[in-house]
């Protein structure tokens, strides 16, 4: 109860007028059965949090059900400890990369048989992402990926190719005077666009071998990223350090995701978003994430609370109004088929959307979970010049295989 009170006191009721008109096509009212109360967990930035609270309020106002949302600070730890202990939520909001692992560990529930929405309502990639071995364990509402962001004061025209981009970066890169060519966190997720652009891959359960770290294409891609981007970046590969120069207007380009935009707006940087430039002989192919509402273990029973949770998830992922607003305000990339490529979307989102089209969804296979850390270590080493790409990837692959055992 205290959550609700708190929601009421802290959401200052902005845009209340919009809310009432928006709830028209939600299927919730038509449902029968008793009213339930569901818990939903998420981990959001401050800017997104307001919208989320507003959405919850809107749903709770319009529906007989109640959904209580909490912003949980370490969602992974929290879910893995609380769900098996029977203390977990009904729904939680995260990118789709946990799907396989969590399904195998019994943290999430398949509700494909009870769904009231057709998965065809979402883009194919999104619909694919929420399933594991044919089980639907949640509903998608947005995509995320990294794309090219440029400072309009320095760059007139977003470059089409990496070669073009390089010359612009070169022009602006001058660390002595605190300007840089590029702001680019150097980790597996961010680098995946290049690692996969020449046909390489990190991990693909349908490929042979599943682990593609040492494939020559992958190595080539990473080497490419290293050669072309590192010289124009600050020395620290971590997100924080990389994000800073561009957001202060001191870098020509950034490669980053939609979540970055709010910071940029806050700081008043004049920016534009474009598709990732293409490397010679390839196409940037970043890993994409699908943000989704997971059906947690608590939804295993068909009671009113589960109904509440499901109806919220369905309402949230299909409500065009809501999603459009999210796109406008938070740069969220819709995966609802009806909105996906729509011209109604702001240009940034359209650009991200295009990148998403080029990209490949992150694997949902549980084994993927054990790939990230060794790969991150390898990339750090490579970035720091402590090892060649080939050697580092070999080492990483070895560690991954050990972990799998």
């Amino acid at each position: 109860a205290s959550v609700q009170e708190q929601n009421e006191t802290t959401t200052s009721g902005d845009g209340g007028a919009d809310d009432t008109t928006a709830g028209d096509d939600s299927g919730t009212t038509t449902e029968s059965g008793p009213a339930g109360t569901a818990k939903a967990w998420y981990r959001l930035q401050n800017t997104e949090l307001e919208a989320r609270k507003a959405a919850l309020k809107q749903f709770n106002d319009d529906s007989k059900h109640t959904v209580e949302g909490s912003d949980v600070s370490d969602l992974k730890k929290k879910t893995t400890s609380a769900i098996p202990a029977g203390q977990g939520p009904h729904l939680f909001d995260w990118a789709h990369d946990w799907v396989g692992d969590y399904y195998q560990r019994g943290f999430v529930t398949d509700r494909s048989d009870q769904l009231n929405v057709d998965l065809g309502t979402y883009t194919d990639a999104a619909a694919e992402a929420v399933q594991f071995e044919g089980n639907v364990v949640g509903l998608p509402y947005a995509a995320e990926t990294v794309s090219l962001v440029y400072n309009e004061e320095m760059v007139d025209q977003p470059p089409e190719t990496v070669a073009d981009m390089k010359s612009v970066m070169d022009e602006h890169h001058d660390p002595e005077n605190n300007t840089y060519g590029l702001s680019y966190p150097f980790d597996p997720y961010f680098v995946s666009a290049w690692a996969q652009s020449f046909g390489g891959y990190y991990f693909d359960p349908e490929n042979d071998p599943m682990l593609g770290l040492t494939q020559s294409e992958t190595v080539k891609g990473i080497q490419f990223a290293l050669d072309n981007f590192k010289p124009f970046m600050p020395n620290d590969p971590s997100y924080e350090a990389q994000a800073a120069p561009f957001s202060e207007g001191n870098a020509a380009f950034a490669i980053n995701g939609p979540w970055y935009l709010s910071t940029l707006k806050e700081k008043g940087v004049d920016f534009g978003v474009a598709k990732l430039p293409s490397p010679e002989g390839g196409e940037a192919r970043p890993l994409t994430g699908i943000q989704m509402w997971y059906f947690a273990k608590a939804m295993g029973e068909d009671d009113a609370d589960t109904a509440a949770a499901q109806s919220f998830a369905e309402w949230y992922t299909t409500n065009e109004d809501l999603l459009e607003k999210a796109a406008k305000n938070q740069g969220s990339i819709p995966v609802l088929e009806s909105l996906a490529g729509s011209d109604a979307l702001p240009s940034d989102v359209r650009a991200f959307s295009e990148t998403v089209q080029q990209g490949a969804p992150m694997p949902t296979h549980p084994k993927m979970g054990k790939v990230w850390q060794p790969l991150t270590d390898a990339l750090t080493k490579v970035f720091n010049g402590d090892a060649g790409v080939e050697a580092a990837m070999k080492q990483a692959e070895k560690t991954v295989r050990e972990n799998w055992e």
Partner: protein
Amino acid sequence: MSLLRSVVRNVKDDAVGLATTPVDTYREARYTAEGVLAGDISPVRPLKSLGLTVGALVVVLALLFPIYWILISALSGSGGSIHSVDGLRLFPEQPSIQPFVWVLGDLIVPSYRIGLAIPFTESALVFDTPQITFLDASAYGVDNPSGFKMFFWNSLTVAIPTVILSMCLVVPGAYALSRRKFVGRRKILFGYVLLTQVGGGLGIALLIGLYTVFVQVGLNDSKLALSVYYAATAVPFNTWLLKTYMDGIPVSYEEAAVVDGAPAWRVVVEVILPLSKAGLATVFIFTFLTGWTEFVVAQTLLGTENYTLPVGLFSLVSEYSVPWARFSAFALTFASPIMLVYLFAQRYIEGGLSFSGMEG
């Protein structure tokens, strides 16, 4: 109660002392200056003092530079960051206290309506208390202030029971260990000394076990349970600390009281405890700090609505970005009460930590 009163008095003295320091300093400076002018005092000495003071100040400031740096980013408006590309800056470019306002949010005591029914009549007196505004966040362009006040309340409701509980556990134990001889006394003391140190960082290692136990007993997400846990972890070190302190209190006070006819518990209440003021203050601060700053266990055990300040602070950090200005402002606001308390308790803590009982 007299303990409380004496603490209040001491705090007052300290405050007065603090306030009169400039006056005293001025007086001293004048005396020295006169002495120097009259040729009685060699000018080398005051200069040496000045030099040493400045040197000390430099060291202190160097140590505190990270804090200052945080402060700058907190004052740089919402865009502040400790990752500033623009080189070393000693002052914020566009100082703004907005992040602090965001942390605090509105400080408004709303107006209440108080009705007083007048007996034997139908009528009632109705008062409207005025609305008192200390800080109106919206005036600074802050619409969605942080949950600081709630976190603060949670922290307080965790830290205070922690302090009370640990005092209840520590004080009798320390007294008995310091003053009485009984079976197993040495073993317990030895164990405490040992665990004082082993216990310090077991937090993480024990998290799994702890969480399991809490969950199974259904005590997770309970602030009180967390307090009990903190109090438990505080027992060895603080018992030991207080025991060492009590060892330094001459036995003759106790004997005087006994000869005066005081029963054991009154000896403790009327003599030992008031004389252990410094030790108690130290234990107080330490246990309070445990409850106030602990992060890992609190984050594991507590649900959102019960987040304490450190967890609340860390929930500002999202997967990809740290809102430095707010983060810093939050942290500094968080630390300020402790600084104040320490400033006044310093005397006691320095006395309470002297381990006088350890010598010889």
